[in-house]
């Protein structure tokens, strides 16, 4: 439908107000809220992610686009509650202890919500113990950690070590990211997923969960 194409374009351009207006339009035209999510918001996010990867988009465009998308998710959430769909999965996320950087982590939160995860944002300066406690409390599928300083990266390892020592390692998928984090580092501490950016994080998280469900089901 044309209006869905327009929603995608408006999100890419970071135009929150226009996204809001277009969503109302789409609902009037008879789209279901879930159609708008599946054929509007999610493809928009995937497109933004692709453009970031191809270096056509940079941090500010991604931030603006994700703001526009969060406007969309907020409006739709009322309607979506009337026709609930199981969340894709549950994530606890935060910036690790000793680190106050928030921008990147907030982006991942928005992207994860965009693809249908139930996300508990623990904020910044989150201790290993808090990650564990909240992951258990919320029955999370994924623990997602961000660090922006090489000096705080070792905190991620602490979380993995505690999971192992308490025999909880298999219960959670561990995701890590942040500017100084590399694939090699992620492997070395035994994390399951590392992605370079927020959009890929959401896509990979979804894939990993689907794969896990297949394996167990």
């Amino acid at each position, binding site marked *: 439908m044309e209006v869905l194409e327009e929603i995608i374009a408006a999100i890419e351009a970071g135009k929150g107000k226009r996204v809001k207006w277009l969503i109302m339009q789409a609902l009037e035209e008879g789209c279901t809220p879930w159609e708008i999510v599946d054929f509007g918001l999610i493809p928009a996010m995937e497109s933004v992610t692709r453009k970031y990867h191809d*270096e*056509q*988009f*940079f*941090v*500010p*465009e991604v*931030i*603006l686009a994700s703001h526009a998308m969060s406007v969309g998710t907020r409006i739709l959430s009322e309607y979506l509650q009337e026709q609930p769909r199981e969340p894709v999965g549950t994530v606890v996320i935060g910036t690790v*202890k*000793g*680190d*106050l*950087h*928030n*921008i990147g982590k907030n982006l991942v939160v928005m992207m994860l919500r965009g693809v249908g995860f139930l996300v508990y944002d623990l904020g*910044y*300066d989150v201790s290993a113990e808090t990650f564990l406690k909240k992951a258990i409390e919320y029955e999370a599928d994924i623990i997602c950690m961000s660090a*922006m*300083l*090489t*000096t*705080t990266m070792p905190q991620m390892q602490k979380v993995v070590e505690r999971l192992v020592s308490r025999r909880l390692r298999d219960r959670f998928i561990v995701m890590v990211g942040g500017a*100084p984090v*590399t*694939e*090699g580092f992620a492997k070395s501490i035994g994390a399951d997923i590392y992605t370079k950016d927020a959009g890929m994080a959401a896509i990979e998280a979804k894939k990993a969960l689907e794969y896990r469900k297949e394996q167990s089901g």
Partner: protein
Amino acid sequence: MEIKVIREGKTIVFQGKEDETLLDQLREQGVYISAACGGGGRCGKCRVQMIQGATEPGEEDVKCLGQEELEAGWRLACSAYPREDCTLVIASADESRFEVVAGSPEEETRSAETESGYDIAIDIGTTTIAIELVGRSRGQSLHTVTSINHQRAYGADVISRIQASNEGEKEALQESICRDLYEGICRLLAESGARPELVGRIAIAGNTTMGHLLMGYSCETLGVYPFTPVNIETITAAFEEMFASQIKEHGETALKLNAQVTLLPGITTYVGADISAGMLSCEFDRREKPCLLIDLGTNGEMALGSKDRILVTSTAAGPAFEGGNISWGMGSVPGAICGVSVQNGNAQVETIGNQPPVGLCGTGVIETTYELVKEELVDETGMLEEDYFEEGFPLAETKKGETIVFTQKDVREIQLAKSAVRAGVETLLLRFGVGYEDISQVFLAGGFGYRVDLAKAVGIGMLPKELEGKTTAVGNSSLRGARLYLTQEDSPKRLQQILASSKEVELSSDKDFNQFYTEYMFFE
């Protein structure tokens, strides 16, 4: 296993160790190579050419180096573990020729021979070190020597130094800075002809991490919130105590000064003695109207205030202004491109010392960005024109015929750096409750700030246009602060006054800062 190293025609051979990276082994041998990211396999600056016995290329090598380079034996020293006899060539520019800004141009040097006594002022920068001989009669600078900070082999920024210290390199880092200072002081006295027995006091200013590394303090708490320093008060020690290991090493011929060494006090972990000294030299404590001091280094410290109240902060500008994280980036060495103009898609460049171009220093990075934006080869979002998107914009050719380019990634690095500075300034103004018009003066400190074309820095949005006319480059204000500390009797008291009225603004979790940071990433 034998490792043979060839650098600038000289060869050294040493016994290799299987369980250490090539970078670590080179450091142990005193072979200095730059490792901007601290050996993390990201910056590609520690590349060496293994012309014999090359290791298997690893993941990091593939990421940082091209296919041709890999085939020619180029590897990152930080991730190479040689397993057999090998020979390597280090071709990276010798950064020991780094051009360091010490004072400002109007300061003339006088003959040292007429003085009855001397003091020595020192600025320890993360990248460079400046050491100045001060005559006691008139408090004047008589002679200055500069060098790079050889701790750079452990990483370009303070965070990677902190990490290296935490990972067991604390003693090596202390040894490195003590050697740099000791050798610098020896050179200063030899070159100026000043008699060592006439040296009375030494004052050192530097950021908090530099101070910790010099004193051998643990850096464990510097890198994590709440960023508590071990000690940032005024510290005094005897010369022979502080440089004991150097003196021991040199034995009979060692320089022994009967001098007292003072490390100036800092404000917080991320706004250190270099900034408090800078504020002293800019006379913050005597100003009625607020003024702004910006140190355009890797840590991007800034201070805004007047005699009653000062707000300080630091913003992670990153090493882009010093040529770090830029494809062809390098320090201010001869041959580094420092001036650029672009017309009809063609670049004209100027290099330091008019040498054949070898890379791009910080000012060259700013100039290139400005020109590309002006010529609309980079759009307002920072995207490079399609024709240059893949290969980068060509600036010049090296002697070997390689093309020095400015890539899309480089534009992105500069966007991050300039918006960090700008957002820092905007946040400080907001918290202080003043507008541009209330600011009486802006001081740009640091070697980079000294040479940068202000109009171009404003042109890319690093500083607001409204402040352009009020801005002056003040060179090394930290060094000048250290000198004032020695020469003006009331300086220690004034410095305490500045410290007492300073308050830190923490930016990384600040909502306004994050908003500004996004906003100013674009070009206008």
